[in-house]
């Protein structure tokens, strides 16, 4: 199956936040009502019952003056997801077409995935002691529908479909923007983390939208993933062997220690 990706053209986003409501509706997530704290962006970040939010950033462009930058934030659905690598219970999997799925029945709520993800996407749901995240509406996509957020987007900022076609469209948008007053325009999610199934068209550099410029998996996670996990299978007999060795050695040592005792009446 060909890869399917979501393109988010932030330059067409009007921050109507229809995507946020459509997401709640499809996933039947309850409202998380937090008080207004001085920004239209009501939540500081996504949470376990809010898989996507539109982030609002005010930025002063030296040439154009004040800009209000909107960016829909959600799981990037990386090709090599750090969450999957970090998970000790294999709760994560990739669909053939690219979605990163998480099985809450396998989840033990350890949240390693949350810390492993460069965007901290998986969020902990205390009530049920599991983490949750965007599924790229895999259950809709596999039934031939578009993700709920894409379906509802009125401005055309969200597109979903064949990777080849959409990448061509996204590249065209970037060159259009570069030629029309946005020299910093760029794609995000193509090279990041080895490629993602969510690709942004940005008018400015990623940091202006609160995105990490070079998203990386933290060293601890790499250690776990590259060193510890591949040898996990060896560790058990190794540990068993070690206990067997220690069983005898402790006794040998004890015996040798006892021996002088026994003959300690010199």
């Amino acid at each position, binding site marked *: 199956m060909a890869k399917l990706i979501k393109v988010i053209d932030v330059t067409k986003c*009007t921050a*109507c*936040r*229809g995507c946020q409501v459509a997401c709640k509706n499809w996933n039947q997530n309850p409202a998380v*009502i*937090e*008080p*207004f704290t001085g920004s239209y962006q009501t939540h500081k970040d996504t949470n376990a019952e809010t898989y996507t939010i539109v982030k609002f950033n005010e930025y002063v462009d030296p040439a154009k003056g*004040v800009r209000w930058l909107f960016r829909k934030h959600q799981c990037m659905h990386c090709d090599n997801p750090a969450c999957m690598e970090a998970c000790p219970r294999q709760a994560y999997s990739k669909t053939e077409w690219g979605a990163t799925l998480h099985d809450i029945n396998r989840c033990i709520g350890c949240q390693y995935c949350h810390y492993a993800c460069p965007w901290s996407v998986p969020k902990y749901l205390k009530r049920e002691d599991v983490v949750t995240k965007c599924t790229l509406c895999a259950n809709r996509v596999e039934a031939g529908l578009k993700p709920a957020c894409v379906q509802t987007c*009125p401005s055309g900022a969200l597109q979903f479909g064949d990777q080849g076609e959409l990448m061509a469209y996204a590249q065209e948008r970037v060159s259009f923007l570069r030629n029309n007053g946005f020299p910093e325009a760029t794609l995000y999610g193509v090279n990041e983390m080895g490629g993602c199934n969510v690709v942004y068209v940005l008018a400015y550099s990623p940091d202006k939208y609160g995105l990490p410029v070079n998203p990386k998996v933290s060293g601890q996670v790499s250690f776990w993933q590259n060193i510890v996990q591949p040898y996990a299978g060896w560790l058990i007999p190794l540990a068993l062997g070690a206990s067997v060795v220690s069983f005898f050695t402790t006794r040998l040592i004890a015996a040798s220690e006892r021996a002088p005792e026994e003959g300690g009446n010199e």
Partner: protein
Amino acid sequence: MSPSFGRGVMTNHIIDMKNTDCALIIGSNVAENHPITMKWLLKAREERGAKLIHVDPRFTRTSAVADIYAPLRSGTDIAFIGGMIKYIIDNNLYHKDYVVNYTNAAFLINDGFDFKDGLFSGYDESKKAYDPTTWDYQRDAEGKPIKDPTLTNPRCVFQLLKKHYERYDIDTVCRITGTPKDKYLEVLETFCATGAPDKTGCIIYAMGTTQHTVGSQNVRSYAMVQLLLGNAGRPGGGVNAMRGENNVQGATDMALLFHIIPGYINSPMNTPDHKDLISFLKKETPGAANLPVSTLAELREAVKAGFPNSGFKINTSKWVVSMLKAWWGDAATPENDFAYHYLPKRDEKKNYSHMAMFEAMYNGEIDGLFVNGGNPVVGGPNANKEQAALAKLKWLVVLDLWLHETAEFWSYKAWERPVENPDVPKMEPKDIPTEVFFLPAAAVYEKEGTASNTGRWMQYRWKGAEPVGDSKPDLWIIDQLCKRIKKLYEGSTKPEDEPITKLTWGPYGEGEEPEPVLVGLELNGYIGKFEDHKPVENFTKLADDGSTACGVWVYSGCMTTKPDGTLDYKPMWRDNQDNSKTGLGLYSKWAWCWPLNRRIVYNRCSVQPDGTPWPGDEARALFKWDPNNPDGDPKTGNPGKWVGDDVPDFNKYLAPAVGPGAAVPFLMRPEGVGCLFATKKDMKEGPFPEHYEPWESPFKNLLNSQQNNPCIKVWEPDKQGTADKYPIIGTTYRVVEHWQTGALTRNLPWLAELMPNMFIEMSEELAKLKGINNGDKVIVSTTRGDIEGIACVTKRLKPFTVDGKEVHQIGMTWHYGFNGYAKGDPANRLTPHIGDANTMIPEYKAWLCDVRRA
């Protein structure tokens, strides 16, 4: 818009936005309040390279996606647009062929017409009103206006227009509006480029334009720009009112207004010239006042022969009589003036608008109030006073989905205020005698019927779910109300009860719930008995002899009969094919739009006077003249007819011509053309919009010595705030997450989550001045009251430099109240009881306040 174009409607439709070359969004936050319109504007930019311009006091989500953002101080639109008119004329950017042929630019004006220092000729200081006799054309012996197509006669409209706006030079304008000069110039250059014959530009406005003491004149100024640039009546052009609710257009078509009866005909008054049907018709039919006719039959003959200065409204008698027949059926006969005397007559001296009604209620003049879908405790201007007025009622009926603030205006929490203020009424439930009834209503998805959207599309909506609990569709409620009232009057023989006892009422079907299709039949009009279900073809077939009945003449044509004899209600049409050959997105078989399914009105202007496309604009020409079309004029038998994708908004059998004999492009106007100069009583404040400051303003009017609109009615002179105590300009608005008073959306958790509390937007500069941090609780005060909200300190708001002085403006939504999941103080506790001189729409958008930390 009616004084400029002939109809008070959006000229184009929502999808047509994709055809524009440039959109001037002014007084509208289209991305937040009309996201679907924004979708088509973004399409215009992507596919045509259209430029989007946003002019607004605040940098909003619309500004965020616009190409150019220009700030202007609230209430200075006329200065802004007046400068644009001057710029267009000075730089010869107007569309000359269009202006000469399709507007009244060439018409000569009465020598008595004059303008001096903010006042037009005929002002009466004691009445605060004009005698508009001189605001008229010079006429020939037949009464026809005299013209000068060279536009050089100093008394022609074009020259008077040029003279009027001479004072609106760029520097003066920017001194008033606070717009940076470079931004203003950028807007002028970009939008006025659409004066080229091959370009069209549209103006999009909403409540930011209308909710001012000069609201109607603001709209007039936009219409004038579009006439000068040749943008009206063409795809991608027009003056497009974004309606704030899904059925505002429908509500006004049905005359949910005090001054009209259905179909935009003035409502009868208790004056001698409205004393009987013929007097009323002579008064309300343009050009008929001085006809030597004294009976309906004589008027009918005169109409048949035609008379000058009448336009299409020459048919008024047919619309009025058909409406009376629809209302009183067999009881409406030629002998009894078709029951004209049953119509209530309003007092000429009284005003029945929202504010006037609440003032009367406050003074104890009204016993009961029926609130259907409204929430004045949150949405009404000067809401503290309006809430107190409700306590003077004997009874109040509220029809809504939720127990909103108006339904619970009597509760303890309804009178809680953030600060003690002796000027603000405070009551307790025990002090309030009003008996409140609540009727739970079905939501839009739980009932059937039509709504008419901003682009005049009348769309049928089917039921998606059953109503919850005991809630009922409002059609059911009104039906029951009428049936039960009629029952109470049953058997009465008193003549004064006849308007009720003789009232026809369907029958709208057999079931308990009335059938919307049968209501549609009455709107459309029918021949013979209602029960025969014979729809009249359209309003051109209506008669004034009692043979036809029609509820709303503008809707006539919305129904036909299918081959099998059943009714075909056109709002149910769902053909998703664009019938335009050049991809203009007309979708003429998706729903139906009034009048006669014309998707773009005044569409004669989409082609040149000679019938050919405007040079370089072939794709947007809606029609062409087909001289050999055999389906010609049935009256003359001559071949030849206009053919095209839309329905002609002009005589489709008249061959293209210049001058007499040509089809008129603006057929609802008596003069047949678009009006740069509004004549006679069309506008209360004068033929040309003139800048006046908002009722509460920190500045003197720099353009004339009239500080405010000279024709406004001042209800509470003692409540006029001044800049020494209230130096900050306040304005209200909506956000995409909530709707109107929030009665619906604040009760939906997913929307409450997105915008949970009342907030006050202010600039970083003002916040610093007042020691306010982002997220702090703040108090905003005016002479009407105080509210609390959370500070939203932003770079997007900037102080204005007006006439060299710095002034701050703050903004807030008017969505909040004390009920629901999302709560906050209603912003309208701050707004004044003052309104536009023509429409009485309140000045919600510019008033004076102060802000401090709570």
